[in-house]
């Protein structure tokens, strides 16, 4: 595995923008739509099927669609490749953070009931607690999948 001067150089060469304009325009049009659906699925994870994992996968799909449609180099602004692994770590940290925040507030690990939000009764606290966890999970899943795509490209 020969190391290029800068990481992801090989990936940039391999994955240029798509030749046909239809794909380029369609992917630019579709990507935001997929992202919205992803966010919808993420936010409604409590009542309807969905949740952090599925939302993350949809967001990742949109980014990969852009990568393939508009080429690796151009889509660095959407999701810079160097950030993918650290972002995954940040997602995990959010998950662990809420857990430890509950410990700091005197309850057990991941016990949302003790969050210092007086204006919410316990059931609501639990549902919002889960929300923080879901944010972390979504972030991790999205960035990990994009990381896998980038590193596979990079050889």
């Amino acid at each position, binding site marked *: *595995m020969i190391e290029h001067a800068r990481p992801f150089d090989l990936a940039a060469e391999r994955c240029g923008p798509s030749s046909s304009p239809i794909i380029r325009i369609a992917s630019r049009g579709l990507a935001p739509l997929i992202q919205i659906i992803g966010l919808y699925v993420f936010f409604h994870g409590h009542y309807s099927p969905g949740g952090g*994992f599925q939302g993350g996968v949809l967001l990742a799909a949109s980014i990969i669609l852009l990568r393939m449609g508009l080429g690796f180099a151009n889509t660095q602004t959407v999701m810079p490749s160097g950030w993918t692994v650290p972002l995954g770590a940040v997602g995990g940290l959010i998950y662990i953070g809420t857990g430890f925040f509950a410990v700091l507030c005197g309850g057990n690990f991941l016990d949302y009931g003790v969050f210092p939000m007086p204006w919410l009764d316990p059931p609501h606290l639990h549902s919002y607690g889960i929300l923080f966890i879901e944010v972390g999970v979504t972030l991790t899943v999205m960035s990990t999948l994009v990381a*896998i795509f980038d590193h*596979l490209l990079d*050889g």
Partner: protein
Amino acid sequence: MLEIIKGYYAYFFLVAVFCIGLFGMMVKRNLMKKVMGMSMVQSAVILFWIVSAFKEGATVTVLDPTREVENADLYLNPLPHTLMLTAIVVAVVTLGVSFALLIVIYRRYRTLEEPLLLEKMQ
């Protein structure tokens, strides 16, 4: 004999899938086929848990206003289902790691046939 099969056909199916999976892992020489066998074994176990949660005439454990809440027999046992969510994630992650290993092996040795691999490694 018939009601035995009627009552437990799910379990016979699962045993078959489990054994095929194990057989595939043990006998097949191609590494990718071993991974397929492994995933069959895992899904057989997951399905076994799901079958264990089944109750005659019960519905999915989402509050249905038409049914009362107290009578537990009307709702399926939710615990195996939730546990199997985690088990499925674990199965997926194991597949991911095994594919990563296969990619590394393929890049270095250009083959996934175990006998060829062993020769190349000598």
